Structures are given as C-alpha cells and as structure tokens.
C-alpha cells in the first residue's frame, strides 16, 4: 500500500520584483510505501521544508499532485513535527498532547501512555518552558504520534541539540516507531543520521531541489548509532558520489 505519493513539476515563490521569482523546487516524483521510514537528505536551502509544507497541505500553492493515504480510521492523515518543538507554553505537557486528540482518545488514556513511552510521566503537569530542549522535543514527538498519523512528517526535529541528547531522541524515535508502525518522512542534512534511521534515503540536489539518488538502506534493525557499518556505508556512498552532500550524484548534470 502506498501511504504517500508526490508528483511535482515545480514550486516557485513569486517575488515582488518581476523576474526575480525564486524556484524552490524542481520536478520531483516519488512514492512512499506504508510503514517505511524514509529520510530526505539535501544541502541546506534545497527546499526540504518547502517540500514538507507542500505535502502537509500548509502550502497549497504548487504545480503537481500530492496524494496522501487515509491512514488509520481513528487517526489523522498527516502528523508534522517541526524544526522547533512549537509547544504551547501556557498548557501543561499533558494538555499539549490532549489538545490535538478527540474526546474518545483522551478518555482511553492514550496521552498518558504516550508520555510514559517517552519517559515523560514525571513532568506531565509541568509547563513546557520549564523543560530542557530534549524533553520539549519528546513532548512534540508524543504530540505527533498522538493523532495516530497516516504519514508523519519530520523536519530536522533533532537539530540544535547536543549529540548525546539527539542520539537518545533518535533511539526513542525508532523505539516508538517499531511499537507503533507509522509511515515517516524525515528530513535532515546529516548523512549519518539518515543512514542510522532510514529504510530508504532520497538525496536532493541544491535549489531548485530535485531527487538525485534514491537509496535503499539495508542495515539490519535494531541498529546501533556507533555501528561501523553505518560509517562504511557512508564512506562507500561518498566514494561513489563525492559531491552527494552538495546535491550532486554521479551522472546527474551540474546545470540541471
């Protein structure tokens, strides 16, 4: 079953000065099967967030089609974890989660279960701005899973955290992902992160973003972030495509 299919012929940000329109995305086509954890990796400014905003429906102004599966009958089609936690500072942690749930889900105790899974049961009644950055991300992650999304979009959610905290969060994400199978589209610019997390990595070019390489990651799960196999894979990948992280794969033309 396909959870998400995207076919874009481009995305242009109109400028007030004529002739200076910014072409953020080139032509893009991919589909994501249900339950897959896919990373989208590209240099900064290549239009990754633009792509997520289009898929989430926040930005309806584009040329092309985005098809999102229905997801679970009791869930939302789309969940979105933003780059910053975007929690409501005036609601307690648990109320932040409950806010996005319907009455039935609240009564079932789903919010409490999720927070427990995130090891946040001790701060359920705290206000988010009292928590550390890592804990705030965990609340945001719990909120994203609270709506039982058909597709969960994640926009570099562990950026600006120190390495150990980010590592713990990645581990937590994989843990909750295996407990609650969900289709995830995870945007990052960190190759190691992508190879550690993903079933598949889509490499994007620099702006206007296109997909230059579609890579299946066959590493066995559960994975260890320090597993040398990840580094090996990264090295062999970069040997084959030296400019991959700048958005160029072997065989793709520079001017495209």
């Amino acid at each position, binding site marked *: 079953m396909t959870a998400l299919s995207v076919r874009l012929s481009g995305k242009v940000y109109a400028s007030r000065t004529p002739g200076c329109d910014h072409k953020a995305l080139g032509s893009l086509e991919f589909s994501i099967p249900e339950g897959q954890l896919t990373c989208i990796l590209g240099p900064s400014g290549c239009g990754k967030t633009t792509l997520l905003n289009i898929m989430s429906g*926040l930005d309806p102004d584009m040329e092309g089609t985005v098809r999102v599966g229905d997801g679970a009958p009791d869930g*939302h089609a789309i*969940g979105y974890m*933003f780059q910053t936690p975007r929690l409501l500072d*005036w*609601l307690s942690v648990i109320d932040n989660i409950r*806010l996005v749930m319907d009455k039935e889900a609240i009564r079932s105790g789903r919010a409490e279960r999720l927070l427990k899974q995130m090891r946040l049961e001790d701060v359920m009644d705290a206000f988010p*701005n009292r928590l550390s950055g890592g804990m705030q991300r965990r609340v945001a992650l719990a909120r994203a899973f609270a*709506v039982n999304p058909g597709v969960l979009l994640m926009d570099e959610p562990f950026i600006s955290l120190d390495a150990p905290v980010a590592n713990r969060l990645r581990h937590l994400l994989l843990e909750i992902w295996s407990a609650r199978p969900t289709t995830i589209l995870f945007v990052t610019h960190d190759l190691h992160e992508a190879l550690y997390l993903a079933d598949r990595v889509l490499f994007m070019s620099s702006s206007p973003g296109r997909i230059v390489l579609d890579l299946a990651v066959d590493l066995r799960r559960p994975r260890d972030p320090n597993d040398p196999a990840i580094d090996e894979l990264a090295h062999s990948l970069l040997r084959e495509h030296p400019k991959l992280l700048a958005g160029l794969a072997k065989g793709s033309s520079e001017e495209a």
Partner: protein
Amino acid sequence: MRRLIASLSTASDLALRLLSLAFLLVIWGLIAALADTPMLPGPGMVALSMFEHAFTGDLFYHVGVTLRRVVIAFVVAMIIGTAFGMLMGRQRQFDMLFDGWLVLGLNIPALVVIMLCYVWFGLTDVAAILAVAINKIPTVVVTVREGARAVNRDLLQVAEIYRLSWRKTLFKIYLPQLYPYLMVAARSGLALIWKIVLVVELLGRSDGVGFQLSVYFQFFDITSILAYTLAFVGIVLFIELAMVRPLEVRLTRWRL
C-alpha cells in the same frame, strides 16, 4: 519553599503599598490642618462624611448605579474592541478599511460623543452607556491589534496541521497569546471608563456618583464630594486587587 518566598515578598510588597498610602494620608491631613478651611477637609472629616452618606444617605445606591454602568460599558467595549482589534491585526484589508475610523475615534473628544449620544438617543441609560463604550472602544482596538499582530504564526500552523476546531484554536492558541494585551486594555479601560461614566452622569442622568457630585458641587460641599470620590476609588481599587490581579496571575502563571 519558592511559594513561601513568593508569598513573603508579596506580603512585604503589600506593606510597602499600605505604608505609601498612609504617608499620603498624613500629608493630606497636615495640609488640611494648616490650611484650616472648609474648602479642604482633612481625611477624618471625609471618612466621617463617607460613613454618614453610607448609613443615613444614598451612597450605596448611587455607587451601585454607577458601578453597574461601568461594568456594562466595560464589557461592551472590551468585546467589541477585542473583536475589531483581532480582525484588524490579522487582516490587512480590514486594517486599512477601519484605520481611519480608529484615528477618528481616538481623537474625538469624550464630551462630544456624550453630547451627541444624548441628543440623538435621548437622556437614557442606553445612551449613557453607549457614549462611554464608544469612548473606550478605540483604545481597546489599538491595544488588541498590537497583540494580534504579534501572534505567532508558527503556532497557528500547529493548529492547522492538527486540525484543531476554530474553538480550540481561538481559546487555546490565539487568545492565550493576546492575554497580556487584553490585561493592559482591561486595566486602562477600568480607570478610563469610570471617569467618563461620571461625566456622563453629570451631564444627563439623575442618579449615580457623577450626579451626586454635581449636586454637592452646587452646594460647595467639598467634604461630600471627596467622600463619594474616595468611596468609588476604593471600589475600583478593590476590583483591581481582588479580581484583575488574581486573574492576571492565573493567566500568566506559566511564564518563567
């Protein structure tokens, strides 16, 4: 512990406030004693007169009538002003459409509004309250518009992604960001409105504190004028301390 320290500091705050008021009373008493004229009665005389008016006169009745007008005008002005402020802060067209009205409303003298309301709608309570509300609405609009402009769009995106109902979006995401501005509007509103209510009563009503003041003014009864004034100031102070401030503490308790 923190709560204890907090309550101690509010206790000493309170002591300081009371001390400062007592000091003012002493100065007043000294000047009155030195001047020794019926044009400036001392605090004791005024207090005595207040008791007389309260228990043998109509002080409670007139204060009640004025208070009712203040409350109604306040509620009407806050609701209408908030609605317009939110719309104007959010939508540029709306802002441009009504900005001229706003400038007019801010600059038209209170006295003129009162006169016109009495002339057009008769010497009625409705006209009186309407005049007061019209005077206050523009300042509420200006304050709330400022708040609406500062509302965090990222959080509104959260509401959109998680498909929150308009009710949840308004009460859990939008209004909490406006509370500081609403509190400012409410504070200044209370002070402004009761002063205008007195003018309205003086010009066209036959009850209320403003009417009583005009009567005592004709008799040059300064003691009674001060007694009525201080009785009402006391009530406004009570509203501020017993209602507005606790509400503010409650609404902003999440802040660091």
